[in-house]
């Protein structure tokens, strides 16, 4: 019996890179799950983590978020953005790995795409946050490409991202 959750592709950077791309995503699954753990080089310190679907740069991305930063909890919203924020309250670090997960529902279906994301960043002090988001990508096209990237380059070597398909 084959597991319902299967690895589509996995990348661990051997050198710094501005983007991790998953392309030619098969449409044979129901949902997708992306798991990210990584750091940035000096040029990317503090920058946010972002995601783009189908290399689409039009303003079709939005989100509602709740987060806690160790001092308070808050909720924010982003509308009509040209990319998807995966972090909004805390940034990427050059030394401390951040973790993110993204669950995209019915990615090959003909409805707008709703997805849930998590982001964890702890600094043993200030500057960290735990973030939970619900996203909307207002496109009824199937998703065949995912790009994940820092707001400021680059991901550092050792950064890893794995894309799973869930039947």
């Amino acid at each position, binding site marked *: *019996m*084959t*597991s*319902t*959750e299967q690895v589509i592709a996995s990348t661990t950077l051997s050198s710094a890179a501005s983007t991790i791309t998953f392309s030619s995503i098969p449409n044979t699954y*129901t*949902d997708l799950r992306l798991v990210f753990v990584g750091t940035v080089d000096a040029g990317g310190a503090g920058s946010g983590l972002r995601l783009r679907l189908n290399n689409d740069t039009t303003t079709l991305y*939005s*989100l*509602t*978020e*709740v*987060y806690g930063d160790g001092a308070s*909890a*808050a*909720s*924010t*919203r982003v*509308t*009509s953005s040209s990319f998807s924020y995966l972090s909004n309250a805390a940034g990427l670090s050059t030394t401390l790995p951040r973790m993110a997960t993204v*669950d995209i*529902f*019915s990615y090959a*279906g*003909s*409805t*707008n795409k*709703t*997805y*849930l994301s*998590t982001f964890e960043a702890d600094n043993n002090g200030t500057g960290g946050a735990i973030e*939970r*988001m*619900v*996203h*909307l990508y*207002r496109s*009824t096209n199937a998703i065949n490409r995912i790009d994940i990237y820092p707001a400021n380059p680059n991901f550092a070597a050792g950064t890893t991202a794995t894309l799973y398909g*869930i*039947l």
Partner: protein
Amino acid sequence: MSISSVKTGAVGVSLLAGNTAYDPGGTFLIQRVTPSAGATSVTFSSIPQNYKHLQIRALTRNAASFSTVDQIRFQINGSTSSIYDNHRLYGTGSAVTADALINFASAYAFFGTVGDTALANTYGAAIIDIHDYNSTTKNKTIRAFSGTDLNGSGTVNMNSSLWRDTSAITSLTFYVTGITSSDAMKAGTTFALYGMVG
């Protein structure tokens, strides 16, 4: 009995009859339900007891005419007793709220659905985890992460629930509720039940 590759030296497990059965582990789809038009609930019954944990993944929309986000509720083993406790943490885009719903007749996965006059072709999403579901000595703790975004409105929610019953879970019934107490689910709504091998 193990076998090894002459070419690479890698050692594997022989699947020949008489050897120890190989259990690959992992997550397995138990059942997916796409309710028919007018359905007001979805039930997973006779849940097999050979997994360690359960996960439900849902994409839902109400057929009722309202434009806001709303709740998914569920009951375990058909129990309608007030033995469900819920703690919610949710954000509306401008405010965050933490509250508790104690001694309720159902568990919640809040804001994982939306009314049918909201943004077209848009559904709410929820991931619900039930660990150690078939224990007969423990009450059941449930975790839900859900939300709906409508590009200008919407809510994201984290919920924990307690079902104060030590029975193994054999059935789950899900409802979407809104203005009326028995809203129907919109076509395209799906609930999928997965079992995780432990």
